[in-house]
């Protein structure tokens, strides 16, 4: 392998940070969701990189990456359903305006 | 087996109770749904545990052990064998069905009802799985409170629910206090609370007087719960007053706590004393059987009738137990006969849970429609409610021990053992079977279903405005009864799946004595 582990981890960390920024700063709920997807992918890159470099004979890393993808699918479906549901009820997907839980 | 089956089975309902308690009381639909859903994992897990339990191994499985109260030397120690496993399954099944049924019929203080019911389930299962006397005692008491409240709050006003609830509570409490004292006495001599170890240590062997006192103290606790004559009068009141689901669980599971205690604690701890006193206990069993049947025949209240029939049927259980405990000199392999008697006794508990639970559901069916249980008010309903008739008839026939249905198998085994070991008792006990047929067919079937249907009388008791489902059994009622009917037929036709498990455990237990 020409590329050392730390590069991968750095890239993953960067992607994670970008995603986190999206989650924290987007006003739009779908934008938040996009950020979450990026974070999940960052985690996945880490998992696969660890698998590749640390335990290449074991399957754990790949298996967990698959689980993460599965969870991401579930999360996207449920999240979008919630967003559309909220949009239909409240006519908005701006996160700031969805503050029913406020004191 | 590392997977903590029993802990999960026992405590998921408790978690459910907490969750239900946290839902706002207005959200009745959600509360009902959550409660039912939280009772399902226990059911599934207990079924899985049953299937995983190696059929022909008699020993305790799924053992879990942890230090709990070091100062008391008390452990959190749970495990099941073939005797408790069917009862655990029975508990989870009946609870799930009760919750499901109640989610349609309970209208008042929904949240409290469901939370308490789940708590009750934890208490009941805990008794069956506990292998430590302290734990056993605590679970024993945990089940008491919710039941007390269920009867007191949701009971029918005309049945004096508060009176019945307090009666139930005090009766049981008297017994359990006596039991606790006896447990402490046992601990003093053996130094352990471990139910599995105590038999080997011969508790109270050096002090016969105290041993006899302890024996009767523990017996009192269990006999009240079973209930055996003359400690049974709480039963008809409690059953009558309790809401349908409460009656189901009361008859289906709570009575089994006593029976289970007799087998798990009384018999192994004091085998010799049990043998010595077997004739007396046998007499109590006979009185319960025949007296219960006779009183049952005198009832005009459907629920009371079934309540008394429970006394009679649990008498069968005691007879089997006595037969197993009192091995007289008979010229055939005693172990097999004793095992058969004990198998019959355990199976009788299981069957009684299924059948009488079903009967109480069915009483609920008619009560929810007419708000009366007076046998004289009905008549000719089979034409009006054919499905109800069919289901009730099947259940009633199972109760009276018709071959091909569950009740017969256990009665046959009990009497098979009793005839071999205590023939005189058996011959007297047979009378109860005839009486059973009489009160069930004469009172229940004939007065409710047969005869002429009178439209005027029906108009008096049935107000369509209060009943929103179909007149004949509604779908949720059929769904509630379906598993019970399935087990009645299954056990009646092919009892081996249930009996294999029981048999292995009872054989091991008897071999140990």
């Amino acid at each position, binding site marked *: 392998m020409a590329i050392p582990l730390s590069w991968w981890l750095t890239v993953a960390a960067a992607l994670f940070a970008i995603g986190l920024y999206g989650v*924290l700063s987007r006003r739009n709920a779908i934008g938040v969701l996009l950020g979450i997807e990026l974070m999940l992918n960052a985690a996945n890159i880490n998992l696969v990189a660890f698998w590749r470099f640390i335990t290449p004979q074991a399957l754990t890393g790949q298996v967990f990456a698959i689980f993460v993808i599965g969870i991401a699918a579930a999360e996207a479906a449920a999240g979008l359903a919630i967003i559309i549901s909220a949009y239909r009820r409240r006519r908005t997907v701006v996160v700031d305006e*969805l503050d029913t839980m406020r004191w | 087996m590392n997977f903590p089956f029993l802990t999960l089975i026992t405590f998921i309902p408790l978690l459910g109770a907490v969750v239900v308690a946290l839902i706002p009381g207005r959200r009745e639909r959600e509360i009902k749904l959550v409660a039912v859903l939280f009772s399902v994992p226990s059911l599934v897990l207990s079924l899985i545990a049953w299937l995983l339990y190696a059929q022909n191994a008699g020993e305790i499985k799924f053992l879990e052990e942890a230090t709990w109260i070091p100062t008391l030397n008390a452990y959190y120690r749970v495990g099941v064998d073939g005797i408790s496993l069917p009862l655990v399954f029975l508990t989870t099944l009946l609870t799930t069905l009760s919750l499901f049924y109640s989610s349609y019929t309970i209208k008042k203080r929904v949240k409290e009802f469901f939370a308490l019911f789940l708590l009750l389930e934890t208490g009941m299962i805990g008794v069956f799985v506990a292998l430590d006397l302290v734990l056993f005692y605590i679970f024993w008491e945990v089940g008491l409170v919710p039941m007390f409240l269920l009867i007191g709050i949701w009971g029918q006003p005309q049945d004096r629910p508060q009176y019945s609830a307090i009666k139930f509570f005090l009766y049981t409490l008297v017994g359990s206090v006596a039991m606790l004292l006896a447990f402490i006495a046992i601990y003093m001599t053996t130094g352990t609370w471990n139910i599995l170890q105590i038999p080997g240590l011969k508790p109270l062997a050096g002090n016969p007087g105290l041993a006899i006192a302890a024996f009767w103290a523990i017996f009192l606790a269990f006999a009240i719960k079973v209930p055996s004559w003359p400690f049974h*009068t709480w039963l008809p009141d409690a059953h009558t007053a309790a809401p349908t689901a409460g009656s189901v669980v009361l008859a289906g599971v709570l009575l089994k706590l006593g029976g289970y205690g007799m087998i798990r604690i009384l018999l192994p701890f004091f085998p010799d004393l049990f043998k010595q006193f077997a004739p007396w206990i046998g007499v109590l069993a006979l009185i319960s059987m025949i007296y219960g049947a006779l009183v049952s025949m005198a009832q005009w209240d459907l629920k009371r009738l079934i309540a008394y029939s429970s006394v009679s049927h649990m008498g069968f259980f005691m007879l089997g137990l006595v037969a197993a405990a009192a091995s007289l000199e008979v010229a*055939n392999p005693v*172990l097999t006969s004793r095992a058969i008697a004990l198998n019959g006794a355990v199976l009788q508990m299981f069957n009684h849970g299924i059948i009488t639970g079903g009967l109480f559901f069915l009483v609920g069916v008619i009560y929810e429609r007419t708000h009366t249980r007076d046998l004289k008010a009905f008549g000719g309903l089979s034409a009006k409610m054919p499905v109800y008739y069919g289901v009730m008839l099947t259940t009633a026939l199972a109760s009276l021990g*018709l*071959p091909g249905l569950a009740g017969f198998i256990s009665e046959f085994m009990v009497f098979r053992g009793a005839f071999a070991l205590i023939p005189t008792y058996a011959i007297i006990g047979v009378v109860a079977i005839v009486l059973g047929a009489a009160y069930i067919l004469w009172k229940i079937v004939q007065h409710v279903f047969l005869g002429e249907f009178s439209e005027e009388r029906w108009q008096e008791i049935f107000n369509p405005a209060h009943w929103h489902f179909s007149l004949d059994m509604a779908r949720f009622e059929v769904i509630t009864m379906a598993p019970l009917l399935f087990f009645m037929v299954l056990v009646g036709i092919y009892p081996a799946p249930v009996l294999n498990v029981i048999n292995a455990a009872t054989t091991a237990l008897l071999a140990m004595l």
Partner: protein
Amino acid sequence: MDFLFSFTPLIPLFPLLAFAVIVLFTYRYNRLSSDIAIGSIALSTVLAWAVLLATLLGGEHIQVEGWQLRVPWLPAGTTVLDLGFAVDGFTAAMLFMVPFVCLMIFIYSQGYMKLGQPDQDPRYARFFAYISLFAAGMLGLVVARDLVLLFVSWEIMGLCSYLLIGFWSFRKADDEHHIDEAQVIRARKAALKAFITTRIGDVLLFSGIALLYSYTGTVTLREIFRPETLETLQTISLLGMPAVTVIALLVFGGAVGKSAQFPLHVWLPDAMEGPTPVSALIHAATMVAAGVYLVARMLPLFIAGFEVADAPALHWVAIVGAITALLGATIGLAQDDIKRVLAYSTISQLGYMMMGLGLGSLVAGIFHLLTHAFFKALLFLGAGSVIHGVEHGHHVAAHADHVHTEHFNPNDMKAMGGLRHRMPYTFVAYLAGTLALVGIVPFAGFWSKDEILAEAFHLWRADGALNLPFWVWLAGTLGAFFTALYMGRQLGLVFWGEPRHTAARHAHESPSSMTIPLIVLALFALLFGFVNAPFLGSPLHHFMGGVHEASEVVHAEAVPFNFTVAAISTVLAVAGLLLGWLLYRNYRPGQVEPFQVVLGPVFTLLRNKYYIDELYQQVIIRPVVWLSNFCFNIDDRWIIDPFVDLVGAAGRVASDIVRVLDSVVVDRWFVEGTAQLFNAAGRGLRYSETGRVQNYLLVVAVTILLLLGLYLYF
């Protein structure tokens, strides 16, 4: 041919399936349901006959040793209880009769329950479900290899009899179906009576089986009859008797209940409240035959007891049989209901069978069982056809006259008369059945009844003294006379003379679905006797006589044909028949009955069935009901409960005192103070909740950042 035996378990299965299918699925479709029921029993018949054929062809070995199949069923301690099926010559003989008669009855029922007609029975499909289950029970009984399966089938039949006798017990009284309220109540009582009465017998049988299982460790018939097993049973003593006798008596108790023998016979006549095909089913092929079958099956046990006891169970069988035979025949003389007469006739004929078995002859009893099944089914179905016809006549008459009629009972023989012209097929068939029942050469009943009497006669002559066989023979011969007498009376009342009611005048022949089974059964009533006719070499003896040989206690040779016996009974039969016919041929309604003129108060006694029902009511039922109320009062009002309440009241007083103390100090100060503290705290902290998820998330992120930083720093 042996592969045919593997079909044996299917024989009871088909009707059982029919039951399940009808009850669960097709109960809304009447024709389909009855077709399913008839089809299933027809299949069973075919299979049963195939098994019979295999047994016939299998030779001596199969007929004696039989074929069997075991299924492990009930784990019991270290052993396992098996269930199973078995076929031998005896079973095969029963398999010839049972499904076939059932088939005939099923076909007949289709007509009787008025399929497709406007007044078709509203629970038509259910009826077929029940009779299918009934047939399944009987077939299961016959092919059972062991006592448990036998008992299961036995009880299923009990249940079916309950359901079917009470079949008309819960509908509104209505004119359409000629149901009045009294009949509804009667049906319901009869059903309960049948079940409880037979249940008493069942419990005895149950005890017997449990004892047998306890002592021998097996419930398999074949194993029980092993000589060594029987010897063990002979040596064990129980209640002062050899165990084998006790068990045999208990088993016989079961048979007494099921086969309506003397002390427990009361349910059978009341069972007439069910639809007529049910009566035929109960009386001919299934229910009552079960008791006789059971005794015959268990005959080695009885005979083993015969050898060791002072008062052997076998004698009790004969005595009870003789008493029943006479009792039934005499009561039959005084009944008006056409079906009741036949019912008492059944009781009496069952007595004959028990007599035969009580004399130790398996074949004699069973032969009579088989022939009786055919001709009694025939008679009942014939009676049903008559009732059907008269009912129809009543209907027609009521419409024609526009009179809303007085209460009319279509079963009343005194309302009939002259029906031989209106219902010719029924009449011919009925006549054949009567002749067979009475025992006229060459009808079936002659051969079988004669064999029982000859057996008794033979045993008497062999001994010489006035021993038990003599009394049995005497009772049998007298019974034969009475049988002829009441049948003559019935023929005279029903078929001869002028119609005594408008209904009888308008009666008509029944549909072909009813008459065809009648004709077929009539043929059997005529011919079936020849399967064991002495001059043909008693084939049935050879076929099933050896069944119990393995147990080394039962003998099987046929008693030679005895002309004296035959002559005496035939002469008496002919005389009785003629007498009854002559006396009642021209009976007019309202007239004093000829028998009453002759017999006086005895006739009243007979008419009231020796007051046995009333006796039971006073001696058994009322005390039990009283006792149950007494126990209840002890429980609830007098002793136990009041004591409990007293204890409770004392506790309450004590608690009241403490309560007052508690509410002031503990509650007011501590508990409420704590609550207020937390309340205040909660009010202050609530503003941190902005309700925006991203704010919260930011907090989470900052926290994680801090934690990570801390982790790195340290």
